[in-house]
Each structure stands twice: as structure tokens, then as C-alpha cells.
């Protein structure tokens, strides 16, 4: 990965512990670890490439727990390929949006919509598409699953990258222009380091969300046919169909282990590295982490750097020379007529797409059906709102309590993070079973299912907001004797409002997505259904009813985008304007 390059060089420079000649225990650990990882990746990768299956033969999933490591590895590989693609997409799309004024005008609103659209609703479209593309191989399903993961990660990361590029301090930007850094140098010395922090945090959060999409996409019924891809998600799906509670427990155990392992060996080290690329100059305590320490203590990476270093430098110089900015070139003048032409074309394309979609839907179903779906949309909206209110009432006090207590925050943050990463759909069977036993209608129960995944974002952000309250203000509140309601009204409420809005936006987005799998659940042969747009989409997908799929997904997008524009954006602006600390 690109992100790794520069930091590694820094590691080597800073290492310099003892003589590099002797192999140590740390070297053994690093060496074996790297080899083992490469072996697993190669083997699992080969499996999905080599095993061709005729289109009608779908791999079966064995519920024997001994198969779990293999399934886990395959799921994990999909996740990382998805992450890699998301990163690549992020750089291209984010860069284009930040650098070109015209591209920005299209790409940013488009990204805003893509971010709000329920990814799961598109699964049916993409699965059909990819299967057609890779006829006669499992690759089509693989691609569809990876694409689902990608769509769950890419938009957030791209937005973060774009924001980082846009908020690079003006003087730094002027400095690179005046000292004529090449495009490559500008990217590697300024833009990438400046955005790495946001990228890593967003990548980490999105990766956690990605498990949810993975679990949903590995086993999906589209156009009346059940597609299964070997992996953890399909294992759980098979276990649900077979009513095998034992297997589900095994899967959950594997999932927790996986989340912990990836957190320890991938994200934590990345966070430690990214921490060094903070734009502020204030000296702070350096984050430490055992994997990074181990890596630094080992001499193998240093040896590698000595060999690869000059090569890296040569490549760096070559790329820099290739992307040099021409001296004293006439800067391009944006022409006004060009702008107008561009705007008109962009507008025409948008309008004709919308018209085509509306005509397609209306040709298949009547206006009455549209009204019916809209009512279902309102039902799901009501669930999302109820869920947000409920989560806020429950989690805000807890989040504030955790955030205001340094020790508690340090202890609980990783735990909350893992809860957020854990795919909620793994827990659905338990809830479903419980609903069946107690006879709870899914009209109410689906709210709980949606909350299982979505609430963590709220908690996570509230903790962050409470942590950010400056000590001065807390001491001020204490010395003035502010407590209870007054303290919430004047200090805590305004201080966490901004992060609460961020959390609520993410949580509502997650809830809309989750509605597609939460409003229609099954246990064995028993199926529970709620009245809502999510169930509508899920049913249409299963039956392959294209006009209804387009209608459902389109309507859901309209609901989400409208909520974003009418509610969240104004709240967000208010938070930025009035309740910004610092």
C-alpha cells in the first residue's frame, strides 16, 4: 500500500538500536509473521481464482467449524481487496475533485448522493452485472461481493481525502508552488501526509462497516436464485437456514477474533504511523504500540530498507522529474463559455437520466404503487427517527460519562470500536429467535435490529465530543457551580452538539442501509416481515422485479438525500457556526 511507504523510511531512520548484524527474537517474529501472511494470502487467493464452477453449480457451505479458518481468510482477503480498491478510488476521485474546479462541481454532489444511497439496495443490480461479466466462474460473485464492500468504504474515505486536500493551510500550498515542487513531490511530501490521518481513521471506521456488507453480500438471493460465496457471511446464512445455533456461535467467535487481529496488526500500527503526520506543530506524547515497537526493534526491515532505499530514491526522483511543473508556463485561464457549456451538458445528462428512470418505473408499475412505496418509506423513516431518539437518550449520557473520564475513555474506546466493527447481522439470528418466541412483530423488532449496527456511531462520536471539551471549560463549570440541567444546557450540550450531529448522520445512514436486511428476516423456514421500504426492496430483489427495485432504491435515496439536505445539513452548519470549540 502506498500509505506505508514514507512512514517505513522514517522507522528505519529512527531505529538505530544496537548493531544491525545479529538476528534477534523480534526479527524472527517479524520474519515469520510476514511469511505466514504472504502464504495465506497466496493460497486463499489462488483458491478463488482456480476453482471454476459452471454457472449453475453453486459452492456449498459446510457447517463444520474446522472449515471456519478458511472461510474467515477468504472473507478477510475480500475485505482487504475492497479496501485497496477504495484507497485507489479515493486518490483518483478525491484528487480530481479537489484540483479541478469543474470536476468539483459534479463530483462532490455526486459523492454526497452516493454516500447517502443504500448500498445494499444496489446489490441485486451489481450481482447480476458481475455474474454476466465473469460468465462461468466464481469471480463474478467475488467481484460483486468486493464491490459491495468497496461501496461501503469508498465514499467516506474519498470525502475525508477531499476535505484534507481542501483544508491544507494556504501558506503550505503557496510554499510548494513557489518552491516548484513537482506534482509527485507535492503529493508525497504534502498532500498524502496531510490527509493520512483522516484517511486511516475513516478507513478504519469504514472497514468495520464493510463487514456488514460482506456478510450481506456473500449470500444473496437475486432473481429467484440463491448465490453463495464461501466465506464467513455465507456460513452464518447457511447456519440460519439450517437452524444451527452451535455453528452461529462458532462464527461469532471467529468474527470477534478476526476483528481483534486486524485491529492489532493492521489498524493500530497504521494509527501510530498516521499520528506522526499531524499538521499541527505542537509536540505531544508519541503514541506507542507493541506491533510498531516490535517492528522497530527488528533489524530485518532495516536490512530491507538498505537494499531497497536507493531504488526507492531513484524511483522517487524519476517520478518527480516526470511530473515537474513547467517553469513560467502560461497559467490556464478558465473560460466563461467553457463553464457554461460544461454546466449545460452536465445538467442535460442528469435530467435525462432521471427522466429515463421515472419512465422505466412508471411503465412497470402504476402511480398507485409509487404512492404505496412512498408510504412504506415514511414507515421506515419513522423507525429511523425513533431509533435515533432512543439511541440518543440511551447513549448520550453514557458517552459523556465515558468521554469526561480520561481513564474510562482510554479503556472503553477500543471496546466500543470493536462493537462498531462487529457486523450486526451476525447477531440477527438471536434477535429473530427471540422475536419468534415472544411473538414480537417485526414492525417493532426491526428497529432493534437496525439499532444493533447503527447506535455505535452515535456513542463513538459522543465520546469523542465529550473528550474534546477543554479542561478550562470543565474547571470553569465546576468553579461556577454549574451542575445538572444547567451544566448540560450551557456546557455539555453545546460542546458535543457538533460530534453528535456527525454521529447521527452516520447512524441514520447506517440504519437506512440496515433496514433492507432488518425488515425481512428468517430463521429456518420461518420468515418475519415488517412494513417498510427496506422489506419492499428486499422482496423486489429476491423476485427480480426490476421496476420495483429501481423504484424502491430510488425512493430510499430520495428519502436519505432529502433528510440530509433538509435536516442534517442545516444542523451541521449550525454546529460549525455556533458550537465550534476552539
Amino acid at each position, binding site marked *: 500500500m502506498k500509505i506505508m511507504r*514514507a512512514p517505513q523510511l*522514517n522507522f528505519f531512520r529512527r531505529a538505530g538500536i544496537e548493531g544491525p548484524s545479529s538476528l534477534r527474537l523480534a526479527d524472527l517474529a517479524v520474519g515469520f509473521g510476514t511469511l505466514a501472511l504472504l502464504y495465506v494470502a497466496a493460497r486463499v487467493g489462488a483458491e478463488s481464482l482456480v476453482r471454476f464452477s459452471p454457472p449453475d453449480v453453486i459452492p456449498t457451505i459446510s457447517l463444520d467449524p474446522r472449515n471456519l479458518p478458511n472461510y474467515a481468510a477468504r472473507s478477510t482477503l475480500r475485505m482487504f481487496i475492497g479496501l485497496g480498491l477504495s484507497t485507489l478510488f479515493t486518490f483518483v476521485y478525491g484528487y480530481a475533485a479537489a484540483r479541478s474546479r469543474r470536476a468539483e462541481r459534479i463530483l462532490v454532489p455526486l459523492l454526497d448522493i452516493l454516500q447517502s444511497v443504500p448500498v445494499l439496495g444496489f446489490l441485486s443490480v451489481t450481482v447480476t452485472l458481475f455474474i454476466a461479466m465473469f460468465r462461468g466462474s466464481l469471480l463474478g460473485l467475488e467481484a460483486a461481493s468486493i464491490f459491495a464492500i468497496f461501496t461501503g468504504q469508498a465514499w467516506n474515505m474519498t470525502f475525508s481525502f477531499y476535505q484534507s486536500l481542501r483544508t491544507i*493551510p494556504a*501558506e*503550505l500550498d*503557496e*510554499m510548494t*508552488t*513557489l*518552491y*516548484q*515542487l*513537482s506534482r509527485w*513531490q507535492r503529493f508525497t*511530501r*504534502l498532500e498524502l*501526509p496531510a490527509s493520512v490521518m483522516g484517511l486511516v481513521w475513516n478507513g478504519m471506521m469504514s472497514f468495520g462497516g464493510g463487514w456488514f456488507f460482506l456478510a450481506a453480500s456473500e449470500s444473496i438471493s437475486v432473481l429467484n436464485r440463491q448465490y453463495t460465496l464461501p466465506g464467513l457471511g455465507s456460513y452464518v446464512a447457511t447456519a440460519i437456514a439450517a437452524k444451527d445455533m452451535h455453528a452461529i456461535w462458532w462464527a461469532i467467535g471467529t468474527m470477534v477474533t478476526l476483528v481483534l487481529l486486524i485491529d492489532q496488526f493492521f489498524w493500530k500500527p497504521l494509527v501510530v504511523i498516521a499520528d*506522526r*503526520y*499531524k*499538521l*499541527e*506543530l*505542537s*509536540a505531544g506524547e508519541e503514541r506507542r504500540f507493541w506491533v510498531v515497537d516490535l517492528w522497530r526493534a527488528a533489524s530485518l526491515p532495516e536490512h530491507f530498507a538498505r537494499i531497497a532505499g536507493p531504488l526507492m*530514491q531513484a524511483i522517487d*526522483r524519476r517520478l*518527480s*522529474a516526470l511530473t*515537474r511543473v513547467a*517553469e*513560467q*508556463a*502560461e*497559467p490556464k485561464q478558465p473560460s466563461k463559455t467553457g463553464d457554461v457549456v460544461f454546466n449545460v451538458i452536465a445538467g442535460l445528462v442528469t435530467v435525462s437520466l432521471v427522466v429515463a428512470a421515472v419512465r422505466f418505473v412508471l411503465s412497470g408499475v402504476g402511480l398507485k404503487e409509487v404512492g404505496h412505496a412512498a408510504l412504506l418509506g415514511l414507515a421506515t423513516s419513522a423507525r429511523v427517527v425513533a431509533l435515533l431518539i432512543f439511541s440518543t437518550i440511551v447513549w448520550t449520557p453514557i458517552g459523556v460519562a465515558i468521554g469526561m473520564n480520561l481513564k474510562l475513555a482510554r479503556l472503553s474506546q477500543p471496546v466500543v470500536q470493536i462493537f462498531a466493527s462487529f457486523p450486526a447481522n451476525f447477531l440477527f439470528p438471536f434477535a429473530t429467535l427471540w422475536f419468534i418466541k415472544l411473538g414480537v412483530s417485526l414492525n417493532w423488532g426491526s428497529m432493534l435490529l437496525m439499532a444493533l449496527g447503527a447506535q455505535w456511531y452515535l456513542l463513538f462520536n459522543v465520546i469523542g465530543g465529550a473528550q474534546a471539551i477543554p479542561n478550562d471549560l470543565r474547571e470553569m463549570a465546576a468553579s461556577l457551580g454549574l451542575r445538572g440541567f444547567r451544566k448540560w444546557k450551557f456546557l455539555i450540550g453545546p460542546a458535543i452538539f457538533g460530534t453528535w450531529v456527525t454521529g447521527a448522520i452516520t447512524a441514520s445512514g447506517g440504519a437506512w442501509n440496515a433496514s433492507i436486511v432488518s425488515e425481512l428476516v428468517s430463521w429456518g423456514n420461518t420468515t418475519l416481515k415488517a412494513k417498510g421500504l427496506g422489506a419492499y426492496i428486499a422482496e423486489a430483489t429476491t423476485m427480480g422485479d426490476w421496476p420495483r427495485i429501481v423504484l424502491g432504491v430510488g425512493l430510499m435515496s430520495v428519502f436519505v438525500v432529502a433528510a440530509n439536505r433538509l435536516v442534517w445539513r442545516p444542523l451541521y452548519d449550525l454546529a460549525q457556526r455556533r458550537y465550534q470549540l476552539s
Partner: protein
Amino acid sequence: MEAVNLLSAEHVSKTFPLPGGGEQTVLEDVSLNIAPGEVVALLGRSGSGKSTLLRILAGLIEASEGNVLRKGMPLKGPNPDVAMVFQSFALLPWLTVQENAELGLTARGVPKEAAEKEALHALGMVGLEGFEGAYPKELSGGMRQRVGFARAFVMKPDVLMMDEPFSALDVLTAENLRGEIGDLWEKGSFPSKSILVVTHNIEEAILLADRIVVLGTNPGLIRGEVRVEIQRPRDKNAPRFRSLIDHIYRVMTNPQAPVEDLPASASSNRFPMLPHTRSGGISGLLEIIHDRGGREDLPKLAGELRLEIDDLLPAVDASAMLGFASIDHGDVVISDAGKEFATAGVHRSHEIFREQLLQKVPIAAVVVGMLEQKRDGRIGKEFLLDILDEHFSDAEAERQFETLVDWGRYAQLFEYDSDEERLYRAEPEEPAGQE
């Protein structure tokens, strides 16, 4: 002015669109030349467009109207002849001091070894030897800006631009670094041909610049310029320096005031400097000149007395100040008062000296006034030094005090008790009776 200006702005204007529609004119019809070997300061309040002008000259912003020329050729895009020192330092926190300093050279494709050498040299110039491997966050603010200077020095630019380079530093650090940059320029080893500094600090402008371009606000335009004709190194406590500050301050606080050079007469401040000579020296000189017919060529006199002309000058200046003589074409000409003083008896000479001193030397009259107002007729030396300190450096104030005491004693205006360090009123009757 030199034949080719390094950098010129010709009738440059800049307008920015306002968010609510319409336009804001930031700069209007600004013309400016930077010649080789000069330090120019752009002085203005916030909103005067001085930073915008700097960025237009650097090629970072395009002018809405008018041209920018570098060595006579029109400028397109970033100006390769300039390097800039930024207010916020603009260092990359993830690169070491050395890597930050090398940045511009590696961008030019200079080989690694050469770039390293250049950077080390520049870091040495700004006193950062030994910090090559440190990261900016490990450095203090002043040291960070030193890295900013080193990064600019490495480029050996024609014009070194500084955008409020010291305003993000605390007062002492800023003064220290400003002094060092000034020293480097005075030594003649400065790595750029010219300097263009943007500042809102009057003292900074006078310390560094050869000429100060004063910008007005709303819209930003050049109100005029003030030449700083003060010998380097500049002592900011020198009277000429202080009066220049007052002059520019008046100009800056009064938008209608014309901007022009400080007239020579305006430099005489409230308390003109007393030449360092004792009263005996003055009377001695005047007696000699009177004996030689009342007019004497200075170099000739010095030669005959086997003195350096510099040794003679304080006494000549003091005589001129007290109205005993005047200078005419290198000759000292004795005045009527001087003639009377040179020929008077002891008692009368004290009287004449007293009259002239009170009339011509304001500080003497001030001291007498203060002594009369005080009931015990005494004032401390420190009190007087505090007053003098506002116009002179510490050491100079001390010398001024000594001279003043000597003259005042001779004039029998006041006495000085060096044990108590107090001045007190002299009782004129008593000594008069004895003599």
C-alpha cells in the same frame, strides 16, 4: 536607480469577488520597483493588501490588471527568482529540518549530495548546526522560523520575500532573529540580492529597510515612501531612529497626511544630544579662536594643536549649540555672545554660560524647572536618566547626564552629589559672594 529592476509591478490592481456578489478592490493601481541591493519594506495596516501585493510579485496570485516584470520580462506563474519566508513558517512537520531546508533544491532536481551540502551551509548561517535531524515540532518557534529562512537561503533567490516573518514569534525571539537577519545583510554575505519584507511593525521596517513603502487601506494603494537614511547597524534608541518612528507613526495614524521623507530639522527631537565635552573645553576653544581673530579653519586649528579633528568637534558642536559660535564653510566663527564669553571675567562668564544654557539647551531648562517645583529642591539621577532613556540608549543617556551635570555646575544652576546620586538646586548668592 539601477538599469534593470529585479522585480517591478506596473499599475497592478487586484479585485476579489465578494460572496454576496460584487467585487472588492484589494489593490488599486500599484507600481513598485525592486532594484538589486536594496531592502524594501511594505508597511501597512491589515487590509492594506500588502500581502496580496507580495503574492502577486511572487507569482502566486494573478493581478486583475497591470503587469509584473522580472528583470524586464513579464512574469507568468510562480516566480522562480524569489524565495519566501512565511508568517506561519510553512514547514512540513513530517520532514526533518534538513529535509525541509533541501525541499526547494530537490524540486529543482539538484543531486542529493549537492542539495545536502547547500542545506547544511544554510542551516549553519542561521545557527541551526546540529539540528539537521530534528523534526520541526521538536524546535521552538524561533528555531522553526530559522528553518524557514534556511529553506529560502538555499535557493539563492534574487529577491527574498518575507511575509510578516517575525509576527508569530514572541517579542524577544522576534527581536533576536530580526537582529541576526539584519546583521547578515550588513555583512554583505546575504544569499539574496534584495529583500522585500511585508510588515505592520514600524520599528521592524526602519531596522531592516532602505526604503519603506507605505500602503493605504480600502482600497490598498501606495501612499508614498520614506527613505531610511540611517547608518547600519541601526540603533533603535538613536534620536534619528526615534524621530523616524514618530514621523511614520503620524503618517500611519493620519490617512490624509502626505508620505514623504523625514525633514532633517524634524530629527532634532525634544532634547537634542549634548556633545560630550566639558565646559572648560568650550571656553578653552573659544578663547583660542578669539585670540586668532574670531575665525579659524578647523583642520588647520586641529593640526596646530596636534589634535585629531574628531577630538575638536565636540567642543565646536557644543559652542554652536550654546550660540557661542557658528560653522561657516569649515570655519568656526565666533559670535557676539562667544566673544563676550571669551573675554569676560570669571563671574561674568558663569552668568553668560547660564543664560545661553537656559536659552539654548531645553533639557537644562527642564531640570531647573523640576528642581524649583520640588519642595526639597532635589531630584534623583535615576529619574533624569529615565527621561533621557526615552531618547538615548542606556550608555548614551549616562554620558548625556554627565555632560549635563558638568555644564549645569559651570552655569551654577545645580549641584550634583555623586554619593547620593542626587541633583540639587545651587544657591547662586553664596558662590557669587565668594567670587
